[in-house]
């Protein structure tokens, strides 16, 4: 178990290091950053001043290791536009993105688990096909468009939910539903497949032979086994959702980390952009580690000798 953990941790650190390198290269793609920061009306002297002030006159390798060295100690640099620490900016915005991600995940699970169980219990019936169709429809739904349609229907026409902003918990319902759509197809299919597999296994036959009630067999015996991969994938899906929330934060004007990145891209504020890429990647890697751990804890067979 310890060996397993250490190996996963080493891979995680290597991934983070690679993402840092890629994020650094990414933000240097445009050529001379000083010119883009100084703006279109800057004189040559302004550009030189900017270059000196931000340390862009140093060789690229020095800039890179400076960034890596600082990031390793939690210092992600300073934003050019907001003139504050990037770590502080991200820290302020992260709760909104995390709230959105968790809302989306909870909604996705509330929809996927019952749907998947229903489809598995009624395998190859019309109900099963309807559930699979729902999963397909969800997969084809453009999230930003669904967001706009919900704003028109639930927001404007029915007046049930606020259209944009972050004032109350109601503000997270619509974006949460939209974000959930990205995870519902995968989670539903996985629940269905897991339940079908579990229902066909020997221990379910034993439970039936013992004369246990149908509900007990389904929820206590089958679901517990089917849930292992679902829980693990749910953690990974949360990682994808946090990374993909940039579009939804933009649609609903939620000022989370995705929105911050979006603003910063428009302002050439590259310390923020590279930091957000790094932070989201680290969160994703951490979540996949959690998923692997959960798998190992819940299913002793995966732990190996």
């Amino acid at each position, binding site marked *: 178990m310890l060996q397993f953990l250490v190996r996963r941790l080493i*891979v995680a650190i*290597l*991934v983070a290091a*690679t*993402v840092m390198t*890629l994020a650094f290269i*990414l*933000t240097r*793609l*445009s050529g001379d950053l000083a010119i*883009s920061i100084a703006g279109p009306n800057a004189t040559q002297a302004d550009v030189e001043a900017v270059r000196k002030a931000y340390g862009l006159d140093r060789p690229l390798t020095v800039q890179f290791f400076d960034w890596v060295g600082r990031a390793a100690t939690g210092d992600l640099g300073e934003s050019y536009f907001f003139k504050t620490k990037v770590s502080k900016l991200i820290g302020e915005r992260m709760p909104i993105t995390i709230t959105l991600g968790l809302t989306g995940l909870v909604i996705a699970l509330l929809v996927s688990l019952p749907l998947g169980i229903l489809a598995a219990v009624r*395998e*190859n019936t019309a109900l099963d*096909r309807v559930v699979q169709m729902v999963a*397909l*429809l969800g*997969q*084809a*739904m*453009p*999230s*930003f*468009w669904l967001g*706009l*349609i919900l*704003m*028109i229907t639930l927001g*404007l026409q029915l007046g049930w939910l606020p259209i944009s902003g972050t004032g109350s918990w109601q503000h997270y319902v619509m974006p949460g539903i939209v974000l959930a759509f990205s995870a519902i197809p995968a989670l539903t*299919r*996985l629940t269905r*497949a*897991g339940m*079908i*597999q579990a229902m066909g296994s020997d221990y379910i036959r034993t439970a039936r032979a013992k004369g246990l009630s149908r509900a007990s067999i389904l929820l206590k015996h089958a679901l517990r086994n089917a849930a292992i*991969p679902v829980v*693990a*994938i749910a953690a990974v899906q949360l*990682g994808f959702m*946090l*990374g*993909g929330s*940039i*579009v939804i934060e*933009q649609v609903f004007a939620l000022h989370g980390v*995705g929105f911050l*990145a*979006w603003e910063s*891209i*428009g302002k*050439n504020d*590259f310390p923020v*952009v590279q930091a*957000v*890429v790094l932070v*989201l*990647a*680290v969160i*994703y*890697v951490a979540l*996949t580690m959690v998923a692997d751990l959960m798998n190992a804890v819940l299913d002793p067979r995966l732990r190996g000798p």
Partner: protein
Amino acid sequence: MSVVSVTAGPKRGWKSVSTWIGAVIVGIALICAIFTPLLVPHDPFAQDLSKRLLPPFWMAGTNPDYILGTDQLGRDYLSRLIWGCRISMLIGVTVTVVSALIGITIGVLGGFLGGRVDDAVLFAITTRLSIPPVLVALAVAGLLGSSMTLLVLTLGLLLWDRFAVVARSTTMQVRNLDFVAAAWCAGCSRFRILAGEVLPNIASHLVVVATLEIALAILLEAALSFLGLGVPPPLPSWGLMIAEAKDYMFFSPWVIVIPGVALFVLVLGINLLGDGLRDLFGARTDP
């Protein structure tokens, strides 16, 4: 993770209605994409401010010349929709070609050679999955400016993971089969075995992945164009059409409903066709 088997449903492959629906949708989209200039009733770029926001045929005050109405600059919505189909299909297919080249090469090498190479391949896949594609694609477009070529290259470089995963796992299965052993015994070179024995046997799985990737690339392109950093205006990408029409959506919802439904139906069609092909080939697309 447990292996998800393809359940023996009542109707699969070409016997299934949904596969046919998918094939018809994709067929229509292909015709629209290839014969675009012949099909558009008006110039999709011609503005006419005297004919702004004409409603589509099912609403009052419609103009029979403009079946789906006009946008905020008086451009024919149907023509822009057909042109947008060309953009979606073009981006979907080209992105998939780029990502397939990268992903299949990486995946087949990892699965075939194993050992250290495979460790490196797995590491590359993990790293790729940890990078949020929308954010990076937006950053690239923001820094380098938006263009079709750049968009295709960026998305191609970001979406190869599923190809790699599937190519790797299927290659591993094929590698140990008897006919590969026979080819080794016959003295075939590594390249000959890869190109002649392995690739043809994993191709069906890769075709199914390709359909999923085309659908994903189309959705991502629309999202990026919607955010203003995908296809540059005045090209009528569906995502861009939705973004431009957004200001009018509360008064005339059809302006976003039409391109959105087109996008949804096209992606659904590609997925339906892909599912049908998967059942037909008995292929697996989950890692």
